[in-house]
């Protein structure tokens, strides 16, 4: 398993939000960059018995066992591919340290907080309740996720999943 680290080297102003952007749920989503420890390329996963679909497995990374979170499956969407090119952002969200699987990883983006708009009422799979805002940058629109709350909800949805 190899990994690469995204080095935050973008200068930030006091009014800028440092976000980490990746693709999932068919769109661009971001969350506070300070939550991200690193980006890893996933090798083979160990499936855990009796795990919900949104936890497709665990892997060993630098001596630590990490669970992989597939946000797509949390919202009832098609699983994200787990092939050789699969990458995940290792995040610490509240008490949970997890690897968030992504379709693709863009990395750091800087958004003027004043440009953040309220989240839409609707989002794929019911994700709207976990959004704190939306914004546009030169690559297009992105939605800002409250990742700690999302991971907490994943835990609470374990029976329904």
């Amino acid at each position, binding site marked *: 398993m190899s990994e690469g680290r995204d080095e935050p080297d973008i200068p930030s102003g006091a009014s800028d939000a440092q976000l980490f952007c990746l693709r999932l749920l068919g769109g661009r989503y971001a969350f506070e960059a300070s939550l991200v420890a690193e980006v890893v390329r996933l090798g083979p996963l160990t499936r855990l018995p009796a795990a919900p679909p949104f936890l497709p497995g665990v892997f060993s990374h630098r001596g630590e066992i*990490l669970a992989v979170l597939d946000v797509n499956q949390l919202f009832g969407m098609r699983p994200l591919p787990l092939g050789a090119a699969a990458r995940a952002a290792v995040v610490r969200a509240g008490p949970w340290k997890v690897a968030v699987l992504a379709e693709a990883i863009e990395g750091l983006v800087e958004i003027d907080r004043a440009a953040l708009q309220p989240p839409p009422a609707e989002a794929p799979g019911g994700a709207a309740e976990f959004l704190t805002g939306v914004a546009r940058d030169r690559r297009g629109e992105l939605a800002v996720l409250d990742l700690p709350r999302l991971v907490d909800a994943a835990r609470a949805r374990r029976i329904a999943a």
Partner: protein
Amino acid sequence: MTGAPPPLLIFQVGPSRFAADAADVERIDPARAGPRDLVEASCLGAPSAARCELVVRGAASALAVDLVLGIREPAPDDLRALPELAAACLASSAVRGLVLLDGTPTPVIDLPTLVCELRPAGSAPEPGEPHHA
């Protein structure tokens, strides 16, 4: 997990490897060795060939598996707790943790708990069977 690790029996169900405390296995029988409660499918999956059965100590039940891969005596550092989110989300308490086998995390299964969870609600444990609530 703390203390000296017990020897672990490594077995395979379908494509997946698992480990269990060897002391929880009374014996390993060939498939269909005798009449008893046989667990043919569980949260571990369903065996593809079911070549043998792990007779669970004190449970009067056996788990059908594809292969028994041997006994390992893991180093203490190779025994790991489940990641916290996974531990909170699993629908079975039979998954007690993980053991690193050649660097690969392998689920450690509490066999008495596994067969107990599969017993129909309301059925009584066998005499002398430890209670794994």
